[in-house]
């Protein structure tokens, strides 16, 4: 296995910045659907669902450097997004 290096930092960090954000949004959406919330801003469980986004995004970004390469970071994070957003769509949590 090739040792990790900081060389490919831009590929990894940009993947986490974009797809980590959509991942965080999906996690907050799953929480919102599970709680059966109508909106987020006007209820405190809704505000909690917004707060979830920060740590998910920031930790995805922090740990994205553990991907073997920038390309892999994009692929794996896209897959993770696909899984969570499909789930969210199936349970009717996405605006239509």
């Amino acid at each position, binding site marked *: 296995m090739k040792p990790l290096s900081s060389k490919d930092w831009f590929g990894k960090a940009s993947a986490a910045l974009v797809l980590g954000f959509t991942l965080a949004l999906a996690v*907050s959406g799953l929480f919102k659907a599970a709680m059966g919330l109508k*909106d987020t801003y006007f209820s405190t469980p809704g505000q909690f669902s917004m707060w979830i986004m920060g740590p998910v*995004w*920031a930790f995805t970004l922090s740990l994205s450097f553990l991907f073997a390469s920038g390309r892999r970071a994009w692929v794996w994070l896209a897959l993770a997004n696909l899984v969570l957003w499909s789930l969210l769509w199936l349970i009717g949590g996405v605006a*239509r």
Partner: protein
Amino acid sequence: MKVRTDIVKMYKEIHGWVGIVSGLALFIAFYAGAITMFEEPLQRWATPPAQLAPPVPLERTQELIDRVLAAHPEAADDYQVHLQTGPERPARMTWETDLPGGGGHHEHEIWYAALSPDGALQVTRQGPSPVAELVDVLHQQVGLPFPHEVAMPIMGAVALLYTIAIVSGLIVLLPSLVKDLFAVRIGRNVKRMWLDVHNVLGLFSLPFHLIMALTAIIFAFHDQFYDAQGAAFGGAPPPEAAVAGPAPEADRSVLGPMGVTARLAEQAPGFQPVEIGYGVGRNGIPTVRVSGRDERYGLRGPTLGFAELDPYTGDLTGTDYMPGHQDGWSATVTSFFALHFGNFGGAPVRWSYFLLGIAGAFLFYTGNLLWIESRRRRERKAGAVQQTRSTKVLAVLTVGVPLGCVAGISVTIAAAKPFGASATEGLHSVVYYAVFLAFTGWALVRGASRAGSELLAATALAALSVPATTLLTMGLHPPVVPIVDFLSLILAFALLIMFRRTALRARGGPADSVWANTPQLAATQQG
């Protein structure tokens, strides 16, 4: 704990780079943030004696309200009654008007009203000193003089880098954690010593730093997060009719301040009300919101939580943000704010946060020193005698930016007293940035070594200017809150010790250091 060596090496490099990009901004955020722990005492210290007559007793508040509403009907939509008054809350009654063209943050004017001893109505726009507000803005915007909408995303980016720095720093430290934890090796190896200090500071304040990083990300991006959630999941706010409470009752009068405090004392005995806000809801129904604190609980705002009351009966109707009366979700969300603001547990927690904030600023400063020291070693191995331009520039900024921030805040705080009633946030901002830019510019011109000792002496003088203006303006501005002057004296003393040490090192320290004041000598020794 074992961590693969390539992972440690990679995260060490990442830690260095995110640290160097965000470190100076974080220094400013933490130093200014530590001072905001004492925003209210600082306002008391800085605010000139009131031009207004002393606040009317609470029992006569209704008379004041009636007089104000007769003379200024525009106040009826949104006015506040202050149950606790002092220099930081100089009037019993205030109201806000929108500035023309405003609408964003801080775009309104506050008016203060009192009754003179002969019963005449006094109205002024002269509120508490704006200098504490400036320090708060410096804290929130990591010292950037940009409009709020521009500065906040930059702050958010700094907070993201800060999170990466925390995670990567922890990963790098894990393998040697047990060995290094309690060791601070002070000796000839300067880099080792700074690394030990950096590790101990970082590890022991890790929870504090995680809280600050994660909450700052939300403070920066909450609008974008809510917008993204709205776009993805829908869920527009419920229609007006659904949130409507009782219809306006023309024949019933809204409960006055005495009634409100009495009803509140019955329903929430531990809650200390500070301010009653009378407003009008979107559907024309009067609203009553009481802000206050309860030291046993964290607060949603920096210094206050709040409750909604029925305007006619005084029954508690909204306790989502009322300390001690929240459900689990509200208390959890409030805890995120409270952990950032350090507003639970009273003075001991505020002092702890103050010290953790100062220690945090110092952590970022030691991080910069380490970057410089590790570069220096590499260059010596490569045979270079002259430090590279990047090391020199970073050394210059590591001297100029933190000292410029510390001195700028001291001078602009001191300026509050001579400014007196003419003080504005803009004026204080000009003073701060003039000092900050002068210090940074001086460091660039003079180089890190000479500027280091010169600017330390200048910063000590800046700190001394705080007690000095207190003495000089004693006649016009009777001194209050002497701890502000006392802390400035301690700061000046600490800076003078650093000044002495820096001057000694510039002469006696290693000649190939960026801090050495003898570049030619270094060249001849190595050559």
